[in-house]
């Protein structure tokens, strides 16, 4: 196992009280595999990523265990994390327009990673950076490496971010909604690129997204988060074929389809995401759920395996047969 996360919790101390952004997450990732983490805003998907990176805001606290290549990351000091971040775990972010430093040349921003983690000289590091920019298909990389971020388009900047993260050949790449801020056509290009690079460099990817299309394109396994908890976890294929959780079902049903003639209205999950300050004692999705049962408001459902399917777990009081579309 490359990454094993056990009972991960992320808690923020705010003026209004404690906010549990992530609650008891368990998952693991093999080398070279791709895990999708899906959920709407506030589901805790980004905080999970930041917790792995050790980059939570200063009022945030991580509990539980994150083991990366056998090394415990929860509670590791900044110095220890600085040896892992950028070297073994890379991260790319949602907004490529603001994620690069506008005051520094691309060459400086890329080269410093290699200088830091590989002890290269500046010249060698820039040469490596140019090679990597070529690999992410940035035309005329040799000249453009000396440009500033504002001279690149959004898609190009995200390519630069990806190239920068891959310089050290990390074992794990965390992509936090890498295509959300981009045009649809550019989105597809970036996803293609990520999938090619995964095969080329053998890097494992955690893809955080609210877009199930992205998951279908790229991921082996999917984690569906809601209110900081896992609702359903499955191989991507079996999740799309037969979702067993009402929330997953809602997400899938809300994807508009071109084939259905009579279904002209857009389907949405009614209600709003939960208030993390006042999470109900039971299932966090209960208030919006169409398959509500008696214990739902008071008893938190356990995450248990779906019978007859390996690698498929769900946290729901309703029976599988009830929820699963026929």
């Amino acid at each position, binding site marked *: 196992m490359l990454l094993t996360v056990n009972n991960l919790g992320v808690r923020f101390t705010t003026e209004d009280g404690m906010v549990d952004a992530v609650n008891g997450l368990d998952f693991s990732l093999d080398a070279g595999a791709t895990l999708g983490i899906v959920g709407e805003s506030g589901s805790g998907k980004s905080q999970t990523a930041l917790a792995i990176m050790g980059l939570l805001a200063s009022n945030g606290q991580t509990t539980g265990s994150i083991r990366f290549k056998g090394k415990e990351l929860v509670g590791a000091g900044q110095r220890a994390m600085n040896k*892992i971040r950028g070297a073994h775990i890379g*991260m790319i*972010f949602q907004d490529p327009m603001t994620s690069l*430093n*506008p005051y*520094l040349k691309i060459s400086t921003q890329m080269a*410093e990673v290699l200088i*830091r983690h590989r002890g290269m000289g500046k010249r060698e590091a820039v040469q490596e950076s140019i090679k990597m920019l070529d690999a992410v298909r940035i035309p005329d990389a040799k000249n453009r490496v000396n440009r500033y971020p504002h001279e690149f388009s959004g898609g190009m900047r995200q390519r630069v971010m990806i190239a920068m993260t891959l310089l050290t050949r990390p074992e794990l790449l965390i992509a936090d909604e890498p295509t959300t801020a981009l045009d649809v056509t550019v989105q597809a290009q970036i996803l293609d690129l990520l999938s090619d690079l995964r095969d080329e460099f053998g890097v494992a990817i955690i893809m955080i997204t609210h877009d199930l299309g992205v998951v279908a394109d790229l991921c082996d396994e999917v984690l569906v988060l809601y209110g900081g908890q896992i609702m359903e976890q499955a191989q991507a294929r079996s999740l799309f074929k037969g979702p067993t959780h009402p929330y997953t079902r809602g997400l899938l049903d809300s994807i508009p389809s071109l084939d259905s003639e009579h279904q002209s209205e857009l389907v949405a999950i009614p209600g709003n995401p939960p208030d993390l300050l006042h999470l109900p004692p039971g299932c966090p999705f209960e208030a919006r759920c169409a398959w509500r049962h008696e214990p739902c408001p008071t008893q938190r459902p356990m995450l248990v395996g779906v019978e007859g399917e390996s690698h498929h777990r769900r946290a729901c009081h309703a029976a599988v047969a009830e929820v699963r579309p026929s």
Partner: protein
Amino acid sequence: MLSFAFKRLLAAIPTLLVLITLAFFMMRLAPGGPFDLEKPVPPEVRANLDAAYGLDKPLIIQYANYLGDVLQGDLGPSFQYVDYTVNELIAQGFPVSLKLGISAMIVAVLFGSMFGMIAAMRQNTVSDYGVMTVAMTGISIPNFVVAPLLILGFAVGLGWLPAGGWNGGAWQNIVLPVVALALPQVAYVARIMRGSMIEVLRSNYLRTARAKGLPVRQVILRHALKPAFLPVLSYLGPATAGIITGSVVMEQIFSIPGLGRFFVQGALNRDYTLVLGVVIFYGALIIGFNFLVDLLYSVLDPKVRAQ
């Protein structure tokens, strides 16, 4: 870039012209003249003096003549310091004021930035509140109050430093006036630096820098310092003006033979040309410095440079 510099210099001409005109007529509006002494001079002598300095001509002619002289770089003779031209007096006083002003500016930028950075990096802690309280105090108390207090404490009380005088610009003589002069500027710079640093620390690109595993020192020095400093840089223009006006008062309090003293003496004695000369000189200096700041800004910010 060059055309930008040229345009800026061209725009300075009307500014200076307005400055000269306003200063000239305001000076003349003030009651009294350079030769109104306690014991009036005989009328014949007075007429001769007026004729010698051109004060007998209509005001508008005097204005035109003065403007013509200024355009040739001649600020005229001083009325009070006989045998001295204003150019000579400025040449004499300016190096002293410059030394004082630049020292104060360096202190303001260095300490202001440092304090602002410390406050930002320890936001909402005791050190942050401490720095900001001191800064607010520094802004609120005018330096003509701070200066006598400093003299009282360090010169009269402890006897560590001289209470006044220049002594050729020895460091002992410089310390107190520079501290008094720089204090409000340190406070302003600290507040600006704190605000911009907090913003930069929250920015996405700083998170990227940390995600790259760079040590904190490198994250701050390479990624945060430059963008956080830009607002401070824009403030340096107004800061120059503040330090110049401050130094007029400080030179008076600490008996420093700089340009500010000439200015105050000139104003009291209705030394028309001297006051005008200093105003024009300082005006040009502030315009020039603002221009320099803009150039520097474009060097530091690649986006401005591209335009």
